[in-house]
């Protein structure tokens, strides 16, 4: 605790300072490589694995089964539909999931009964779903519409609030980075993309921007407080803000990630595949990537976008000169002073 406090104190005073904004080329490169992997990975792997909601089909889940013999399920399905190739998997501790191609109503009723008797459970304990292939597309369609609308609205709100569109742009770039990387992780690992995962992706939108706004607000505060006498360049101020909010970023991420991780653990190990696991997995990845991108992409990019503005460039030169004068000897002062336009 004391050391973490000390860490926060040092970051606040600037005693301890991570040069995040200055090393932006490194972060850009890292982001570039990550995005490349996130795009190429799924392509090499053969695309995303879509859940049954997107491909269409029939699904049966038997809960509280005593045996987890998967052959039993296959046989039970083939008894009814000989040509079916069921995908059987164990989910959670005592449930079995059987997925098949789309079955007719009669068939699915019979399969249900057949599975129930094969595993000697009450047919009422068998959950059955029939999903037409258009269901997932519907969800995706509306998700994409929501995404675009949100980007436009959030961009406008941020541009108005911060009174500069460059912050909005930097935040959006970081957001896209988060989405691409989260999707990429899904593509590379082969996690199933289900509507619940899509919900998770959409929430990342809110969370990622939320996180960025908190840090940007500090940046706005720092940069607007810099008077003409400031020895900090614009990039320095941004960097200081990032450092000052670092403790907050860490605390917030931990606090946000803890509940999500607990859903993930419960969802994955107790319930098995399902809404909870799918939402929380996407969220967990998105939150971590979101916090990272705010610090390492949004902030440096914002400094990058702004520092070529004539006014800021002029002030930066002045600040550099003042800084040089303060730290270097008088020789150095005259040296840099020559570069400063009066």
């Amino acid at each position: 605790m004391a050391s973490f406090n000390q860490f926060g104190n040092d970051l606040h005073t600037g005693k301890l300072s991570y040069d995040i904004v200055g090393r932006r080329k490194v972060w850009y490169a890292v982001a570039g490589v990550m995005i490349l992997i996130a795009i190429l990975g799924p392509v090499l792997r053969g695309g995303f694995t879509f859940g049954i909601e997107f491909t269409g089909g029939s699904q049966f889940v038997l809960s509280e089964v005593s045996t987890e013999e998967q052959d039993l399920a296959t046989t039970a399905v083939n008894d009814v539909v000989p040509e079916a190739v069921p995908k059987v998997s164990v989910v959670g501790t005592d449930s079995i999931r059987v997925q098949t191609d789309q079955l007719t109503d009669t068939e699915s009723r019979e399969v249900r009964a057949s599975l129930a008797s094969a595993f000697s459970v009450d047919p009422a304990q068998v959950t059955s779903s029939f999903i037409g292939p258009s269901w997932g597309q519907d969800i995706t369609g509306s998700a994409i519409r929501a995404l675009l609308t949100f980007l436009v609205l959030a961009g406008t709100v941020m541009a108005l609030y911060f009174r500069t569109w460059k912050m909005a742009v930097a935040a959006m770039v970081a957001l896209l980075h988060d989405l691409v990387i989260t999707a990429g992780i899904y593509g590379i690992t082969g996690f199933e993309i289900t509507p619940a995962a899509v919900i998770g992706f959409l929430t990342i939108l809110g969370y990622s921007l939320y996180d960025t706004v908190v840090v940007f607000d500090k940046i706005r505060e720092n940069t607007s407080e810099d008077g003409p006498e400031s020895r900090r360049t614009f990039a320095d101020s941004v960097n200081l803000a990032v450092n000052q909010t670092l403790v907050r970023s860490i605390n917030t991420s931990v606090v946000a990630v803890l509940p999500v991780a607990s859903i993930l653990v419960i969802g994955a190990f107790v319930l098995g595949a399902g809404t909870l696991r799918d939402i929380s997995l996407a969220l967990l990845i998105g939150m971590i990537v979101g916090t990272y991108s705010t610090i390492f992409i949004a902030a440096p990019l914002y400094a990058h976008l702004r520092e070529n503005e004539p006014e800021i460039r002029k002030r930066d030169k002045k600040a550099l000169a003042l800084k040089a004068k303060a730290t270097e000897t008088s020789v150095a002062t005259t040296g840099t002073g020559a570069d400063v336009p009066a």
Partner: protein
Amino acid sequence: MAKSSPTKKAWRSLTWLGVIIVGLIALNGAGVLSGGGSWTPKLALDLEGGTQIILAPKLESGQTVSNEQLSQAVSIIRQRIDSAGVSESEINTQGGQNIVISIPGTPDDATLNRIQSSAKLEFRPVIVASAPSADSVGTDDSTAEPTDGATDPAAEGATDTATDEAAAAEEATPSVAPTDASDINNITPALQEQFDSFQCSDIDTTVVAPADEPLITCEADGSVKYILGPVEVSGENISDATNGQVTTQSGATTGEWAVNIVFDGTGTEAFADVTTRLSGLTGAQNQFAIVLDGSVISAPQTLAVITDGKPQITGSFDQDTSKALADQLKFGALPISFAVQSQDTISATLGSTQLQSGLIAGLIGLILVVLYSLVQYRLLGLVTVASLIVAGVITYFLITLLSWREGYRLSLAGVAGLIVAIGITADSFIVYFERVRDELRDGRGLVSSVEAGWRRAIRTIIASDTVNFLAAAVLFVLAVGNVRGFALTLGLTTLVDLLVVALFTHPTLQLLARTKFFGDGHKLSGLDPRALGAVYRGRARFETPAPVASRKGGTSSKEAAKRQTIAERKAAELIGTGSSKSTDGKDS
């Protein structure tokens, strides 16, 4: 300490919060007492178990569904499900296109078929009409006596429905071939027997009656029992149906409501034939029945021969009933049929397991957050915990109220939204606490740090919550299904977060700042200026943290002095030598 204005304000805020919470609870209590509400939110199917069916309209390319059509379809489907005796079903539209049907338990096949089949509207001539009593033999009014002897309904009764079919097959051929659809020769002995034993509750709307055979059915409200002839005009031949007041030739309205039908070419021709024949008949045979999904929705008498395909139905209509019939005629005849897009049957066991796991996950998440807050913020962490509890209580009652007033049902995705919200809500407190700590580090006293920190933090909190709320609102408006449940809880908790941080967290901190424990910066308070290295007074200015120093004990002052040196040295490097610097004796 004297009652200063922030203290008063703090108590006022807390009072408001109390009023809001008590109000929510009272509202909920009123709901429970009035019978409609409950102390727990209603659960969606994935938590409660049941069947959810999503129907998507089958559309030709370029075709669209209007809201009117959709709501008509919903009401038709609702009638069908209700007539199947399924209670507590919920039927909603989704995304302006789909229809979502939620039924508790597992529906039988008949119900499923009933839901899916598209509405079928037919015009059939009435052959026999009678009161719908099991004892009636269909001869108690002006209709013609059946040609063959009717068997005693009391002897045969409804008991042998199984043999009916066999009998029907045997006696299906009328003794005399019927000359037209109104001919009573359509009635075979088997049909008569069936009619006699027919109960209005027996109507099976799942089986589409063959169009070229007579049909036994009832008025939709069960008031009249009919034998109807084969279909004369099908609903597809209606091109429009409207309601309006009857006008005389001079254009004055009579105040009587009527339904006006417009037939297409085929319909006009067929309807002209029917009315020509029916207008020559008397009694029940003068009537034609409008049959929707196997039930008679109206059986008007034929007053004239209609050759222009624009009949007008008058009777005991008012504005609403005429509108309802016109809608039924118009939309019931529409060729939109629905296809099952997804059907989910969740066993009750799985539902309760999911709910339980969701709650356990939430609880574990909450405990972890509490532990982390306590480690990070010491007793200040308790403020976080209390704030989370207040937020939780408000959210719980809001959701319960929503589920009572708006029929909201908490789904698993909604539960996930709530759990995720724990993190986002706690973040507001973190942002706030960090700001207060920043102010402390700058050497302010706790009371003014709380005020200054709050002014800065609330800006950030409002800005970031706006973005989050925006995301939730966009998702809620544009997305479908599960996503909406999730978005609703996320948006709701964002608002609750703002409320709690303004009306609870901040006032609490204002009051706590005036206590000895926090105000003196006890080590465990989480706001210990010494631990926070309260020296640096912002850019270009150093100040001896005089009030802090005066409170310091011997050992900690040494420690502080050491830290101060480091901070100062670093700061000095940063800001340069030109700054004013007030040194104190401790600076070595």
